[in-house]
């Protein structure tokens, strides 16, 4: 007998037959794996899923996903995605971009996508470098970054992707690390579940041009002290519960406090509230060594999504109107000419 029940897809079913063309050891591999796993776990439908990217190493991503994919031009993925989603809101749209693609040439589209709140997931692979063009510094590179275009070190202050997103009006912010395979699927599922634009910054190691730039907090040995994985409604604890994040309510600055015997309340550790935008802004700014780096879902505050509002308005505005092309072109003051007269030439 023919078994017609759809079999659940595995991570491997989301891989294409294309040879993956990143440098051996590139963090992109891990993210690809994490995304494919997430797809399988979510039970994503390949044909309803579209990956849209710009240009960059990271933007090669769609070629490796057995879904629909569009590898567009540098920086423009958010704009293309907006058209895709407006044309077909049923599609599940994922944008893959880099720190150069999404924040340098594409910063404007990013801001407007976030502001408009298009329902999609933005995965920004931040390796603090231009990988594809061979290692120039990027808008997220730290001051002093030596690169082919800044042989004496970069001087300009870097952009902070999540702060930029927040200022642009983003309503879902999360962070993850390429190698954090355990946490990644949950974060991506949360991003996917969020209606509206979800902005996910993925710290991604470029082994060739910027190796270990996130070492200060990605090093597994130190991670208990350098990473804090936020959970909504849970106290913001790290270092195996021995430290926590508190707030100085006078200066409105965060501080790390020691937690004795698990009594985080006494230490003044705050509970993570995803809805709190002010806290989100503060958490984003935490930097090693003074603080752990904030990871996980930092902020969520849903609102109606752009394509939904557009669709609704289209429907509302059309209500009760006759769709008659013939009548449309005859609109306005018209007159009839009856007798046949030939125009002279």
């Amino acid at each position: 007998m023919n078994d017609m029940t759809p079999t659940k897809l595995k991570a491997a079913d989301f891989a294409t037959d294309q040879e993956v063309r990143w440098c051996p050891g590139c963090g992109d591999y891990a993210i690809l794996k994490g995304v494919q796993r997430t797809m399988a776990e979510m039970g994503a439908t390949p044909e309803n899923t579209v990956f849209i990217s710009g240009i960059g190493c990271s933007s090669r991503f769609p070629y490796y996903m057995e879904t629909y994919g569009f590898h567009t031009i540098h920086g423009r993925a958010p704009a293309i995605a907006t058209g895709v989603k407006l044309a077909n809101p049923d599609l599940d749209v994922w944008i893959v971009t880099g720190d150069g693609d999404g924040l340098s040439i594409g910063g404007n589209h990013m801001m407007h996508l976030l502001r408009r709140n298009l329902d999609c997931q933005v995965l920004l692979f931040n390796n603090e470098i231009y990988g594809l063009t061979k290692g120039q510094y990027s808008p997220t590179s730290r001051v002093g970054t030596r690169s082919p275009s800044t042989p004496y070190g970069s001087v300009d202050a870097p952009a902070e992707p999540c702060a930029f997103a927040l200022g642009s009006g983003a309503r879902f912010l999360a962070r993850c690390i390429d190698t954090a395979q355990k946490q990644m699927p949950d974060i991506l599922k949360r991003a996917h579940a969020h209606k509206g634009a979800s902005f996910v910054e993925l710290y991604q190691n470029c082994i060739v041009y910027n190796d270990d730039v996130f070492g200060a907090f990605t090093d597994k040995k130190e991670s208990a002290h350098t990473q804090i994985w936020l959970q909504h409604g849970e106290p913001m604890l790290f270092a195996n519960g021995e430290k926590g994040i508190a707030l100085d309510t006078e200066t409105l600055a965060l501080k790390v406090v020691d937690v004795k015997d698990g009594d985080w309340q006494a230490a003044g550790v705050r509970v993570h509230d995803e809805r709190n935008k002010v806290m989100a802004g503060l958490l984003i700014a935490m930097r090693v060594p003074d603080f752990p780096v904030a990871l996980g879902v930092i902020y969520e505050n849903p609102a109606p999504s752009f394509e939904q509002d557009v669709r609704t308005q289209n429907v509302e505005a059309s209500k009760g109107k006759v769709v008659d092309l013939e009548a449309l072109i005859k609109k306005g003051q018209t007159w009839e000419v009856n007798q046949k007269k030939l125009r002279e030439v």
Partner: protein
Amino acid sequence: MATKLKDQTAAASEREAVTVRFAGDSGDGMQLTGGQFTQSTALAGSDLATFPDFPAEIRAPQGTTFGVSAFQINFGSEAIETAGDAPDILIAMNPAALKTNLSALKPGGLIIADTGEFGPRNLKKAGYEENPLETDELKDYQLVAFDISAQTLESVKEFGLGNKEALRSKNMWTLGLVLWMFDRDRQPIRDWLHSKFAKNLDIALANEAALNAGHAYGETAEIAQGLGRYHVGAAEVEPGLYRTVTGGEALSLGLVAGASLVDLPLFFGSYPITPASPLLHTLSRLKEFGVTTFQAEDEIAAICASIGASYAGQLGVTSSSGPGIALKGEAMGLAVMTELPLVIVNSQRGGPSTGLPTKTEQSDLYQALYGRNGDAPMPVIAARSPVDAFDCAIEACRIAVEYMTPVMLLTDGYIGNAAEPWRVPAIESYERRPATHYAGEAVSPYKRDEKLARVWIKPGTPGLMHRIGGIEKNADTGNIDYAPANHQKMTDIRQAKINGVADTIPDQGFELGGPDDDLVVVGWGSTYGPIHQAVKRARRGGAKVAQVHIRHLWPMPKNLGPLLKDFDRILVPEMNTGQLKTVLRDQFLVDAKPLNKVSGQPFKIAEIGNAIEEALS
């Protein structure tokens, strides 16, 4: 009442065609007046063409020369295709309007001026040292000058409006007078006033009163001596239902019709820019026709969103003017490479750079044909007139979908704003060619049909997942492929596909004359009107001159080369420095001679006429 009235009969004189120019301050409502007069002219059965000519400023300071807004209409009993070389009648609502428009007036033409506005302040603002109505500066014209302002105030007195408010009806008073001059029915205007001011009856009534008063002023022969009355007969035209349309309206309707004929929802992504914005405005009101409009953050986002919509299965259209089209160049390349349907409308304006945003020009042909990196062929078509924009839009949609390609549709500021009567076509007279989204067996995304168009697979279709992008793809599999032979093959295919569009476009015909003439005048776009009139006049004068007007600028009709090669003399008038000329010489190796005008103004018939004469001498 001012001086210098020449004795003249007030009886209606028969005219084949008349050109009237309304000119006043931006706040004087000249565009509205012109529009209503146009409507009235159309209802009277004359053929007509208009040329709204407004300032770049939103609202320039009152009384200044750069704040003058003008509206010209040419109408007659013969076929009218230009707004007229020189007005017969100039209505000057203030000194600045007189100053800036006088030079255009026909020698001996009639000036109607509102003395109420010729006070010292306004004279000074317009740069007059003395009042020209009182010197002999206007001695070569007929001048009828009187206090329209005062007349208007008087006529609306009973409504108790403030002075400023009351003077707003000056334009209706003037319109009333002009309607009298041309013996027009006031009723349609009255109806329009009442519908426009439905919520404010007093204003409607005041305007109506002013309209009637202006008309009555004309009838009072004593006062209106010097004002001629004209009779312009109905034009001889095809029977049918008519309306007036501007190019902007016709283009919007054409896009809606074009999308409907290929059976696709229309996605319109745009960013405001003069003179392209009206398209966005019109289409955003037509949601019930399956139109989604998207005002993007810039032109790049606008075209990209439209590409995205096409990728998702709709018909993406984007629209801008020169500077914005320049920004879209890179993304056009993406549409060429991914072979997605897309219509790009360029409403050309004066360039380069920001240039002259409110003036007309056709200087973006180079950009349309050649303005992309790499070998990126793209069909280009151009509308010749407001009415023609409708058909061109339909044609652009057809080609885009049938050949899976971006198509550039050129129009310009003149066409966009100008109005002419339109015999409304029957939609069923256009062929329906519904697009198909492939949903069959697994297939390469670069599988092509006999026209070399690739399959259009909508995301969402089960079993056909695939990846496209701007990097060169293997001709067979659609996977990334940098191999030399493959790139050559794909380049050849892209070129052959676009060249193949010529298979489905009509042969080039003659607008006037034929192969036996001595000279052919070749044009494209909005120069159609003046060229047609100039050639017609020259032919009447016995000149052996033909006219060819090209809609399909790329690829060109297959017979165009042979057709042109029959001529020793080819004249190419363009509102640029000679861009079509380049294409003709390149493609057909014919000695096409340019006639260029780059002043932000349409050609005058006489300018082309002179060039014809010279070419034939």
